[in-house]
Structure formats: structure tokens, C-alpha cells
């Protein structure tokens, strides 16, 4: 048992997605069962685009904005919202000892430069020499810094002054799960008092869509909610940014912070996807919290991506807990890869804060209605190709 004073509590949330910016905007759309999806710009793939953001509000210096690509701007913006929500933005004493763990992939490529180089190479007398020459001439010197995985954290240090520590985890969905798991473990063990955890994802990129198209895991032919995609379904990715401020209960109380929800457990696993994907790992983790779950007051947010066979594996696990109503957040915000799990934990905290589960968005009837008061939300995260996680979030 964790010492109650060292229990992890969520005191700050910063979220941006296709649903909008901040907690109220997200809640309004979730309650109404609405989403925004672009089926045209990247056809035959669908993408949930990021909402309109006034970056000046969280990244005041234009020079800083210019040094970032979209994923970093989205993330730095969401991190600012989270610090604001926790009431520690600009509090240099706390920020200087705030632990930061960011879940990140890689930054945008310059698709125009890439295309121009690819177009020039076939006609070149010496393609190797031309490639070197064009890379030296066509790449913006600072583009590298907008691509490096750890430079989202670097930008958050620069723009918001978070300097206690700075670690970046990589590896698709698992990076988001493990960021939260390690941060909570540090807080529970007294290795840290307060942490900023999260990440961002820009789905509106053909260079990234290409990576998933290698394995044919993208949904084609128009958007459908996650559970309605069937055995030949796939992912619809979504741009989003999500950051959480998590601290020990004692630290939150001492500074008079409002506790939005309790982060009671975060676990991660890695199942063999060649054998029985996803479900065994989720069962193993579920067993560790099963005695604490109170059906009737509990719901589950699934981060299922729609990709198969992972989604079917997760669904098999969920079907074993028919007394726990499920919502697939991917039907609303798309699959956000690295920050997907922190985002869903944020939505769980939001849901608990509002007291009731939001609308089902599922024509298949797998998502059951629920009107009773909520006390617990389990967050399930199954990576579309590897890695599983489970979190228990409870009402403050």
C-alpha cells in the first residue's frame, strides 16, 4: 500500500484535440457525442485535425514558435495549459523541481524538400553526390531541432521553465504509458513530489501516415467509430496534445491545490503479439486492481486504435467485464499514439470531475449507457502493434 501522503493526485490537465482546447470544450463535445474528422485532406485516410489554437497565448515569443514544428507547438501549448490548470505556471520555485517525462515520437520531415530531392535524383549523373549537395542546401539548419524527440521537452523547459528533470520516452503508445507509470512510481516512492507528464502528436502528416501504411493499419474509405470498423478495420489517427500535473497528496495539500482526481495505479506490460495479442496482458494488470473495482460506480475508457488484431484482443478482454461500461475515446479524438494514454487518463479525470460518463459513440451497441454517479475510471491502453497499459483513476 502506498503511504496516503505519497498517493499520486492529478492537479493539472492541459488537453487539445479535434474537440477543442481545455476541459470544458472537451466535455461539451463528449457529452453531446460529437467529433470532428477530416475525410478529404488525406484521402483515402481520415484524420482528426487539431482545433484552431492561438499559439501566442502559451508560446509568447514568435522566435520560439518558429523554432518548432507543429507537434512541438501543440505539445508546448498543452503543457502550458496543464501548468496553468495546476496553478504553477510561472512559479519558478516549483518548476525548478518539477520532474518532466515526455512521450514523443519524431518530428515532421520537410516533405517539400524530400519530394524535390526524390524528383531530382533519377536524372542525376551522380545521385549520391546530388543527395549530399541537396541535403546541405535544402534542409533548414534548425529543422533538426524541430525533429529531435527530446526537443519537445527542451522547448517546454525554455518556454515554461520546467527544469527539475527532463526525460523523453519513445516507442509509440508504450512511451506514454511508461511516462505516467514511472512518474507515479517516483512520486509514490518519494523520489519526486510533482511531475509534468504528457506528449503531443501531429497526425496531419503524410510522412507519418506512410509509416502506418507499411503495415496496412490505417482505416480507408471514410470514418467509422472504433467498434464499428470490424475485422478489416484500421486506425484513424488524431492530432492532440495532453499533459498532466501529478503530485503527491501531501504536496498538493500543502500548496492548497485543487485535486481533480486520484491516480491510483498505472501499469504496463508487453504481450506477445504473435500469440494471443493484448488480452492476456490486460487480464494480468486487471487482476492487480480487481479487488478495488466497484461495478456500478466504475467505467472504462479504452484507447483502442481500431487496428487489428489488437482491437479484437482488447474487445475480448472488455467483454469479460460486461458490468463496466466502456467508451472508446478513439471514436472522438482518433488515435494519438505516444500521448494517447496520458490523454485518456486526462479524459478519465475530467469524467470523474464531472461525475457522469459521457455519451456512447457506437452504432454496434458495445458501449452501454450509464447514468449513475461515477467513482472510478479504468483506462486501458493497447498499442496498435505492441505494448499494453492499464490505469486506475478515482474521484478526488
Amino acid at each position: 500500500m502506498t503511504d496516503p501522503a505519497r498517493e499520486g493526485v492529478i492537479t493539472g490537465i492541459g488537453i487539445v484535440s479535434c474537440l477543442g482546447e481545455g476541459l470544458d470544450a472537451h466535455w461539451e463535445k463528449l457529452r453531446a457525442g460529437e467529433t470532428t474528422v477530416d475525410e478529404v485532406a488525406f484521402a483515402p485516410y481520415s484524420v482528426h485535425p487539431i482545433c484552431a489554437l492561438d499559439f501566442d497565448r502559451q508560446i509568447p515569443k514568435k522566435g520560439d514558435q518558429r523554432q518548432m514544428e507543429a507537434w512541438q507547438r501543440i505539445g508546448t501549448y498543452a503543457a502550458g495549459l496543464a501548468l496553468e490548470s495546476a496553478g504553477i505556471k510561472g512559479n519558478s520555485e516549483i518548476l525548478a523541481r518539477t520532474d518532466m517525462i515526455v512521450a514523443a515520437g519524431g518530428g515532421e520531415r520537410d516533405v517539400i524538400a524530400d519530394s524535390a530531392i526524390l524528383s531530382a535524383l533519377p536524372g542525376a549523373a551522380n545521385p549520391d553526390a546530388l543527395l549530399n549537395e541537396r541535403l546541405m542546401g535544402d534542409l533548414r539548419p534548425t529543422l533538426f531541432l524541430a525533429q529531435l524527440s527530446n526537443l519537445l521537452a527542451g522547448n517546454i523547459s525554455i518556454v515554461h521553465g520546467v527544469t527539475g528533470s527532463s526525460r523523453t520516452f519513445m516507442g509509440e503508445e508504450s512511451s506514454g504509458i511508461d511516462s505516467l507509470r514511472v512518474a507515479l512510481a517516483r512520486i509514490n516512492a518519494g523520489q519526486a513530489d510533482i511531475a509534468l507528464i504528457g506528449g503531443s502528436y501531429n497526425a496531419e502528416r503524410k510522412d507519418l501516415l506512410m509509416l502506418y501504411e507499411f503495415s496496412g493499419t490505417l482505416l480507408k474509405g471514410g470514418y467509422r467509430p472504433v467498434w464499428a470498423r470490424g475485422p478489416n478495420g484500421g486506425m484513424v489517427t488524431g492530432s492532440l496534445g495532453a499533459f498532466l500535473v501529478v503530485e503527491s497528496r501531501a504536496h498538493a495539500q500543502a500548496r492548497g491545490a485543487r485535486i481533480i482526481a486520484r491516480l491510483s495505479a498505472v501499469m504496463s506490460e508487453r504481450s506477445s503479439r504473435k500469440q494471443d495479442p493484448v488480452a492476456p496482458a490486460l487480464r494480468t494488470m486487471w487482476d492487480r486492481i480487481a479487488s478495488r473495482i466497484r461495478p456500478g460506480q466504475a467505467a472504462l475508457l479504452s484507447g483502442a486504435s481500431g487496428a487489428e488484431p489488437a482491437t479484437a484482443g482488447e474487445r475480448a478482454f472488455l467483454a469479460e467485464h460486461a458490468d463496466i461500461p466502456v467508451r472508446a475515446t478513439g471514436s472522438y479524438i482518433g488515435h494519438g499514439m505516444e500521448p494517447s494514454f496520458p490523454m485518456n487518463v486526462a479524459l478519465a479525470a475530467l469524467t470523474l470531475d464531472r461525475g457522469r460518463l459521457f455519451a456512447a459513440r457506437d452504432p454496434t451497441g458495445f458501449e452501454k449507457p450509464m447514468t449513475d454517479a461515477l467513482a472510478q475510471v479504468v483506462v486501458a491502453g493497447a498499442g496498435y502493434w505492441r505494448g499494453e497499459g492499464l490505469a486506475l483513476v478515482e474521484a478526488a
Partner: protein
Amino acid sequence: MTSARDKAGRPIVVVTGIGVVTSLGAGKADNWRKLTAGESGIHSITRFPTEGLRTTMAGTVDFIDVDAMSAPRLSERLAEVAAEEAVAQSGIGARGRFPGPLFLAVPPVELEWPQRIEIAKTSGANNAINYDDLLRVSAKFPAYHDRFMFGSVADNLADTFGTLGSPISLSTACASGASAIQLGVEAIRRGETDAALCIGTDGSVNSESLVRFSLLSALSTQNDPPQGASKPFSKNRDGFVMAEGAGALVLESLDAAHARSAKILGVVGGCGEMADSFHRTRSNPDGKPIIGAIRNALADAGITPDDIGYINPHGTGTPENDKMEALGVMSIFGERAKNIPMSSNKSMIGHTLSAAGAVEAAFTLLTLEHGRLPPTINYAVPDPAIPLDVVPNVARDAGVKYAISNSFGFGGQNVSLVLAREPA
């Protein structure tokens, strides 16, 4: 028997296995012999054509063959070589069954030019090729999916070594290797595990990665002779030299190591970090984050600056890094700074980037074990602004009880480790 807890009451974390591969060779023996002989592993690049590039040398690892060459593929292979050596030395677990988690410092992964060009050719587009053309035929390349996922290197290593739980892939830029060790230390101190496999690896020298650093004016351009390019702390230093390699440590709690009568090779006494909010590629001119990271490591280890007998610096050979690092060291150690030997492994092996923190921690542990300090080679023109003992050009014997290993990276990353010969 030594107490198994440190001054703060936490489990003492010891090293029971060390593995290393660099441009000097594979394995501790070969690396240590060449490192103490002052040999350089830097050479002219043959992996790809360098026509039109400002920098044409690097410390690539060319003696290890991999099929289907790519940065993640080579990074994975280098990590395997280092981890095999470390795990074998420690004698922990059973083959393919490591009893703890994996913490892997690995370069960010992305599709590379050979693959991009291959896909463009397959698209059949003749001119004005764009990403729509590439997307149209991408499904014909399923193997590229797993290879170019960020988690793929760690996933394969977790299968090979049978580590437990979700493997952590991490990046703190050029401090990554040290961060991997730090995460392992913290997990053992929390009592989550008795052992951890911590690896830093980097096999990412290709034309675009070289161009990226070149465009930031970070690389030495003194290509001839390549062995002379990396000149840390010299007045004529002109940038770092990209390099490849891997370092692996098996960490265990002292209790667990004692319980299985494992040979203890060294102790990770403390870890410190502090992020820099000043600039994306430059250190705060007041040196505060570097000083803070080192002080935090000393405090974490429960020792004072007076206890330190050797510094394995980040020492990249860029004008900025070496100046700022020396400033930090002088600020912490004061008058004593001049008498603390501080030699840069990078003068010989170049900057192994994501691997550097792990490779250099491994070399620091060997330095403590052998009681011999590897030199800073290519030290011909002293920099009066850096009046420190850089162990110029020739190795020498010195018994050291505590050493510091520094790692700094783009994005304001600063990590410092305190390594010791024996438990305090």
C-alpha cells in the same frame, strides 16, 4: 560484509556486468588496451559517399556486419554486442532470461534515404515525385513498418535478452546513455526490481544525420588526418566528431549481488540532473544547470567535491561545451579543480551520441578498476581558458575512489553520475 543500504537508507546499486563496443573494437579488453594506448578510432567515412560534405570522417563501427543496413538495425546490433558481454560477465539469470527491466538509450528512428529512394522507384513516378506517390505503394514494404517504429530496437532486445516488463526506450539527446543508467538506479532504489539492464546505443551515422549536425556547425571539419580531428579542451578544437558504439551495464542491488556471490565491478553512487531553460543548443552562460547537475549527483551520492578523484567529462571538443564544462568544474571544485584529472574519451572514440553516457560510464568504471587514466589525445595547443589537468596525450596510473561522468545534450539535458570503486 558491507551494509547494503546507502547513507539515505536506499538499496546500494552496484555494477556486475560491463559491455562496450566502439570504433576501437568490440569488448572491454580491446577497447581498454587501445584507449590507454591513446589510439583513435576516427577514420574517413566509407559507409556512404562524402562528396560535397564539409565533414568526411567519423567514428563509425564498420567491423560489425548487419543485413539490411539502417540506423535502428545497426543500433540494435551494437546494443546486442555490448549487452551480451555485460550479461555474460555478470552471470545473472539464464540465457535469454534477464531478471529485470530494460532501459535503452537509442537514437530517434525514422525512415532513411535508401528506403525512401527505393519506395520512390517502386512508385513508378518519373518526375515531380511526392508523398502521395510514396503512400500509394507503401503497403508493398511491410518490413519497414516494424523496423522504423521507435519501439522496435527495444522490443527486439527485450525478446533477445528476455528482460521483464515494458522496455523503456528513451532519449535525452547526448545524455541518453546516462539517463538509461539513472532510470535503472531509480528502479532498484524503489525496490521495484533487484536488477536492470541499462544500454546506450547509437549506430546512426548516415548522410542526413551528418548533414544535420553539420548545418548546426557542431562538427569538426579538420578531416585530415581524421585521427586528429577530435581535440577536446584544446585551443584549436573546432567541433565534435560523430561516432557509433554501445555501452551496457548490468545493475543490481548490493543485496542481490551478494546473494548470488557476484563479483562487484563498481558502484553507481549517485545520479544528478538539471534541465537548462536557456537555449536549444547552448548552455546557460552562468553554467548553473551544469553545476546543478553535478552538485545534485554529489548530493545524491552523499559525498562532497573533495571526494572526487577523476572526472570523465562530456568533453565533446566543441568550443562551447568544453568552455562551459570547464567553467562548471572550476566553479564546483575551486582551486582543487586544477588537480583533478579530467580526460575525454571522445578524443579517441568521438561522440557516440545516444550511447555516449553509457559507453563513458563503462570506461569510467574500467578507469577505477585498473587505476589508470586514459588520456585526452590530440592535445597540442592548450587553451588558457581551461587550466585543467586533461591527462594530456599519455595515460597514467592513479588510484581513484570516486569519479564523475558527465553527459550533456541538446534541449538543455544535463546528467551527471557518481561512480565508485566500492560501496561507501
